[in-house]
């Protein structure tokens, strides 16, 4: 059997959080072990791949090779928020390496000179070295490389010098909100949160730009409730509705008042297979709220069109000439005999198996003499007209260390105030959200919400899961008194755990005989009874792949059982409890 690149996609596709690694182990891994060409390797010195590692490089040492290989970062893919896949080029002619990091471990796949190297997080066949290097790829050369006719100093300069904030007016219809509120909400999240979902959906655009290396370029949003019900065409014709949006006096008045650079109407899924559309000649678009987040990111996708983001070249089923230099980013798919399929934020969604990545660049294109660099979008971004208040618009940043250990850390929203008479004036209201998966539809990944204050303190011992090394995201937003909404995300890294839990419950001080759970299988709640233990305990519930689904605090007393409310689909889960220095991990089943 020979591994090909089509199987690479399969290998990394086991990584999504809801996948069954055990099942994977039994099938794919057995197949790999039987592959005489596959060389098992170990990942050493590779911690969680940093979120911005697109620009980083890695040094690889593989068994059987005398040379060390430096892979230049080409593409950083972030999947389902707790999963990171980094793709790099090694050598020429399609040699490639992929690194993945998940709560369940790290994996590596490489194909070099026809040899296949593979490390699986659950395997003990590891014996190789991967070193994360701090030096990054050379941006200047990258900038030059995408210029078909040679370097363009002016365009390259814009990559670093153009720092704009664009203002998007988001008209939120009742239809959009109704669609959002039907999404599943965990009982622990009392404040869900249609607007928070919409805010995350909007901010996915900024995150895609961040992932693409577009520092200093940002969008801010004004969310305005809007009744479009009398303006929809009776024929559900999205083009007519977009035209109506374009000429509607009320819309123009609001946009003019707020000095918006673009307008997006958020609505429901009324247009069937069309989830969104953007006008190429005017900054107007319509987006279904149902698909603002993973896997479609329609909001970011349509705004990407406004940024002149296009799709494929003709040779890859697109409509951009192969000889054109106009489309150096945003390619939706590379599919050939020598490269795996990868999808950017501008990708075509053909079925549910596909998903877009929050990045504008083509994942790893290295054919036809063209490079596909997200930096190109910087130029088009700079070319857009910031109609109003350039450099005078409301912006925020978060101060506070990104490295967390045991000590509480205070984070503060810093306001870069609007100019005089520019929308975005004080006073502000604030929102904070701490979680691992804020860009998915799964609200279970939210750890904690904070109240309306511009400064919060995160106590890792209380606010974070006690047994996860995965990175977290601190999301913040500020809403001005006149309705301007801006947001920011800080990626937090857990550099140490307060107390490393034991690998299995059998070696824990707290045994299942001293704390028992019932019923098992469970439906809506777990009841814990203890024998000889009492106190405030932290608990977390995990999927079979280790992804944390929820967590909280309970009081364990001998006199009465403690209840943990669950709202989970049928399946196998693990309950983990930490009480002081004691730790318990026990599986349970949900059968609704």
């Amino acid at each position, binding site marked *: 059997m020979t591994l090909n690149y089509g199987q690479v996609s399969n290998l990394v596709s086991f990584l999504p959080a809801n996948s069954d690694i055990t099942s994977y182990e039994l099938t794919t891994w057995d197949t790999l072990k039987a592959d005489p060409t596959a060389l098992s390797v170990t990942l050493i010195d590779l911690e969680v791949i940093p979120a911005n590692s697109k620009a980083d490089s890695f040094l690889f040492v593989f068994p059987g090779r005398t040379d060390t290989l430096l892979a230049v970062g080409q593409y950083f893919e972030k999947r389902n928020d707790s999963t990171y896949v980094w793709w790099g080029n090694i050598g020429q002619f399609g040699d490639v390496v992929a690194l993945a990091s998940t709560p369940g471990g790290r994996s590596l796949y490489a194909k070099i000179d026809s040899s296949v190297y593979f490390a699986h997080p659950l395997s003990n066949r590891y014996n190789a070295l991967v070193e994360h290097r701090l030096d990054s790829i050379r941006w200047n050369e990258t900038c030059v490389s995408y210029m078909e006719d040679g370097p363009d100093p002016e365009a390259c300069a814009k990559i670093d010098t153009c720092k704009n904030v664009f203002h998007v007016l988001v008209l939120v219809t009742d239809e959009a909100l109704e669609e959002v509120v039907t999404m599943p909400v965990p009982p622990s999240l009392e404040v869900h949160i249609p607007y928070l979902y919409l805010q995350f959906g909007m901010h996915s655009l900024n995150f895609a730009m961040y992932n693409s290396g577009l520092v200093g370029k940002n969008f801010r949003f004004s969310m305005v409730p809007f009744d479009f019900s009398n303006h929809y065409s009776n*024929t559900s*014709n999205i083009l007519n509705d*977009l035209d109506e949006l374009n000429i509607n006096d009320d819309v123009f008045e609001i946009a003019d008042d707020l000095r918006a650079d673009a307008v997006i109407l958020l609505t429901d899924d009324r247009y069937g297979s069309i989830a969104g559309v*953007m006008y190429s000649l*005017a900054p107007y678009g319509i987006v279904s709220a149902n698909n603002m987040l993973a896997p479609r990111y329609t909001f970011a996708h349509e705004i990407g069109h406004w940024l002149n983001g296009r799709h494929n070249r003709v040779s890859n089923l697109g*409509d951009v000439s192969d000889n054109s230099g106009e489309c150096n980013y945003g390619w939706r798919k590379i599919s050939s005999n020598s490269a795996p399929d990868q999808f950017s934020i501008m990708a*075509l969604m053909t079925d549910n198996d596909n998903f877009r990545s929050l990045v504008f660049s083509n994942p790893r294109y290295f054919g036809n003499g063209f490079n596909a660099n997200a930096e190109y979008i910087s130029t088009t971004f700079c070319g857009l007209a910031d109609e109003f208040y350039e450099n005078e618009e409301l912006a925020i940043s978060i101060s506070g260390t990104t490295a967390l250990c045991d000590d509480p850390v205070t984070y503060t929203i810093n306001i870069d105030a609007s100019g005089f008479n520019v929308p975005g004036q004080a006073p502000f209201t604030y929102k904070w959200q701490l979680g691992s998966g804020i860009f998915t539809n799964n609200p279970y990944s939210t750890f904690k919400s904070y109240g309306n204050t511009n400064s919060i303190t995160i106590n890792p011992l209380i606010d974070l899961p006690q047994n996860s090394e995965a990175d977290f995201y601190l999301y913040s937003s500020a809403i001005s008194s006149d309705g301007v909404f801006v947001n920011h995300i800080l990626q937090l890294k857990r550099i140490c755990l307060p107390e490393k839990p034991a690998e299995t419950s059998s070696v824990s001080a707290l045994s299942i005989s001293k704390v028992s759970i019932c019923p098992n299988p469970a439906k809506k709640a777990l009841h814990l009874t203890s024998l000889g233990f009492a106190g405030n305990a932290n608990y977390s519930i995990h999927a079979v792949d280790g992804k944390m689904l929820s967590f909280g605090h309970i009081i364990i007393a001998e006199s009465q059982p403690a209840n943990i409310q669950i709202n989970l689909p049928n399946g196998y889960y693990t309950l983990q409890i930490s009480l002081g220095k004691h730790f318990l991990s026990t599986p349970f089943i949900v059968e609704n």
Partner: protein
Amino acid sequence: MRYVFHLFLILAFFSCKKDDDHTQNPGEPSPPPADVYIYVPCDTSTGVARGSKLGNDWISGAELSNYEVNDTLYWYLDFLTCTSDGLLREYLSLGGFPDSHPLGTYSIVDKNVPSGYHGIYGFSSYGMLGDDGDLLLDFYKPDTTATINSYLQITRWDTIAHIVEGNFHLAYRATHVPTSDPKHYEFMEFSDGRFWAKIPE
């Protein structure tokens, strides 16, 4: 560079001519076909439309649907063309004829919100799309200054065979002057149009 210049000249000439007189006068020889994009029908299982797009043979899929206004049922047609890969490229919508008396000729008026038709007027719009069909390149509304008025004629309404047939002539003007592509024109015309479509059961 020379090619680009020639292309510009051709476009400029065409645009000026269109501005002066964008429809053919009776008795004049037919103008040469314009250089336009011709795609393939998206889905012909529910109907087909044929015609001439600025002098070029044009064919699309057709689908008949209905909507209600003030308890009155109306019908409309969507004519769609796609790339060979199935990506939507042209979206022509045409209709506004009542279920009660569908046969007849309907003048196409420039009205974007079809809420007040009474079987005399019809509506239409035409859009050209790019990429995956989610990027509106150019949008057209009925050209009220055209020499030949736009119309939709329903010639057969057979509720037993579930077939509707008819003819059309449609002249449009872009809401924004196209700039992205010289093969997109400010004025668009579909002449000698005819269609059939299934009446949904």
